């Protein structure tokens, strides 16, 4: 981290002919989200960057210690607002493993279908916001129009458009699918396929504005801690769903898209390809959905003060932004001792962003910034 920023802040114009100045790309800027970056600029080029997090810090990890696992299932949707069902799944898996619960087969299939729908919905937001940042306004309006089809499916199944009220809970899922779910999901998937076809038509314009910007090579990506689409865009073939399969991912057939260039255009292409793979997963899971119970019998009407046996676990999942993990430890009184949450955006927004912003032009800052698919709520927790 360079020292020019700290000395430059107190002396704004040290030399009258200098072209150096400081710029705060802050939280109230319409192109930046809830996150600020302090930049030291020379002319039009960024010399160094320093991230300024903390606008959304609530102390999530300690809030979970005051509550029981059933109450935490509802709190865990709100870790990252753009993909609530995926984080619900990580928390439920951690508690299942700690308490040694056997989840029924039908519940595992339902969990995978909901998680993949939430991943598609999150990639649609990424596509829309990225398009708006580089000037493709049709993509923004189109993306948020088609996303509402998926939110209608969520409302039909779980009861909430954005937050699913703790639908994926320890022991299974809270209630079964309604009777017309399969037709509705197939209809929605056809609409999403239509959107992907329309979205690819804008490709030449997006490619011209995003090629060779923000290049991250593979060795530096692993050293900085990048995971998920950012690492796959730099050429590394890895995915937590294939490396250590959880739920039923080892019985499903899907591919992992990778690209070797490592620039913003490669990451944008990976986002679209992952949506296609998620559609294939949902179709396979819907065709082979077994009958049965959706929650283990003891947890159908659970007591709110359920006690956890002593132990510790570390659970890793693949959410839409990268690798998410929960370290959960419980003490001998039956309460949660520590629940550490590892989110992908903590690494993407501080070390990776500071590294990538060095040497870019001011006009390319939105393209680099939004191509990392950031979520400030997940970073601050």
């Amino acid at each position, binding site marked *: *981290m360079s020292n020019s920023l700290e000395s430059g802040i107190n002396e704004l114009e040290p030399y009258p002919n200098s072209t150096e100045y400081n710029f705060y790309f802050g939280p109230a800027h319409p192109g930046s989200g809830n996150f600020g970056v302090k930049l030291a600029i020379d002319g039009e080029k960024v010399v160094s960057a320093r991230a300024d*997090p*903390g606008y959304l*810090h609530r*102390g999530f*990890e*300690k*809030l979970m210690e*005051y509550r029981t696992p059933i109450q935490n299932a509802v709190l865990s949707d709100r870790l990252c607002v753009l993909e609530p069902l995926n984080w619900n799944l990580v928390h439920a898996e951690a508690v299942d493993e700690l308490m040694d619960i056997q989840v029924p087969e039908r519940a595992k299939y339902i969990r995978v279908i909901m998680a993949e729908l939430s991943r598609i919905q999150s990639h649609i937001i990424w596509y829309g916001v990225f398009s708006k940042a580089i000037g493709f306004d049709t993509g923004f309006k189109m993306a948020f129009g088609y996303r509402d089809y998926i939110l209608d499916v969520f409302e039909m199944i779980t009861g909430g458009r954005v937050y699913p009220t703790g639908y994926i809970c320890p022991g299974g899922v809270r209630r079964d699918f309604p009777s017309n779910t399969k037709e509705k999901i197939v209809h929605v998937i056809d609409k999403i396929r239509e959107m992907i076809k329309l979205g690819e038509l804008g490709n030449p314009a997006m490619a011209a504005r995003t090629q060779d910007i923000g290049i991250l090579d593979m060795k530096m990506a*692993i*050293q*900085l*801690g990048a*995971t998920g689409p950012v690492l796959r865009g730099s050429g*590394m073939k*890895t995915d937590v769903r294939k*490396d*250590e399969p959880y739920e039923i991912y080892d019985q499903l057939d899907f591919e992992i898209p990778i690209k070797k260039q490592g620039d913003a255009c490669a990451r944008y292409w990976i986002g679209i390809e992952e949506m296609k793979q998620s559609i294939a997963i949902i179709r396979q899971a819907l065709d082979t959905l077994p009958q049965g119970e959706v929650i283990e019998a003891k947890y159908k009407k659970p007591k709110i003060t359920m006690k956890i046996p002593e132990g*510790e*676990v*570390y659970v*890793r999942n693949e959410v839409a932004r990268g*690798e998410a*993990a929960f*370290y959960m*430890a419980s003490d001998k009184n039956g309460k949660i*001792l*520590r629940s*550490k949450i*590892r989110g992908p955006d*903590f*690494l993407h927004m*501080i*070390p990776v962003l500071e*590294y990538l912003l060095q040497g870019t032009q001011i006009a390319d800052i939105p393209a680099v910034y939004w191509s990392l698919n950031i979520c400030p709520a997940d970073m*601050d927790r």
Partner: protein
Amino acid sequence: MDEKETAFLEEIQSRFQVTGRIQRRQRIWISIDKENLNTVNQWLKKQGFDHLSAISVTDLLDQGVYEITYHVWSYTKKILVTVKTRIDRKNPIIASTVPIWKENAQIHERELHELFGVNFQGNPDLSPLFLEDWQGPPPFTKDFNWREYVQKKCYDKKNERETAYYE
């Protein structure tokens, strides 16, 4: 079934003084004392464990220690090894792992310094990350009770609409 995990655990136990166990497939947990921590970490990095997933601190108030855990993953072997160690709670000082895992470790240690008060020696930058002008104790320690703090600061017991917060 867990052959490669057993073989790897035996190799670690033959080189260093650790106590270890295999929890399930792809998970190995080992405990070591504070002085030999970085020799184990450096050996692990040379074996291909180059992804540091997380560093975490657990506050054990009744035993008077902080327990620090390092979770590392290898893309080639596909095993996750967790290294645990304990330090004194009243004077929490430990050597940093920035020379081994560079920027990845630096940002995790900066966050833990702010929230728990652990001093990582060798970390170039331990300035506050999330909080601005915070004067109180490190927030995540077990002797800082949030509910009492909030009840004193923000709510009023005499107001009949806020009595629910005092239960």
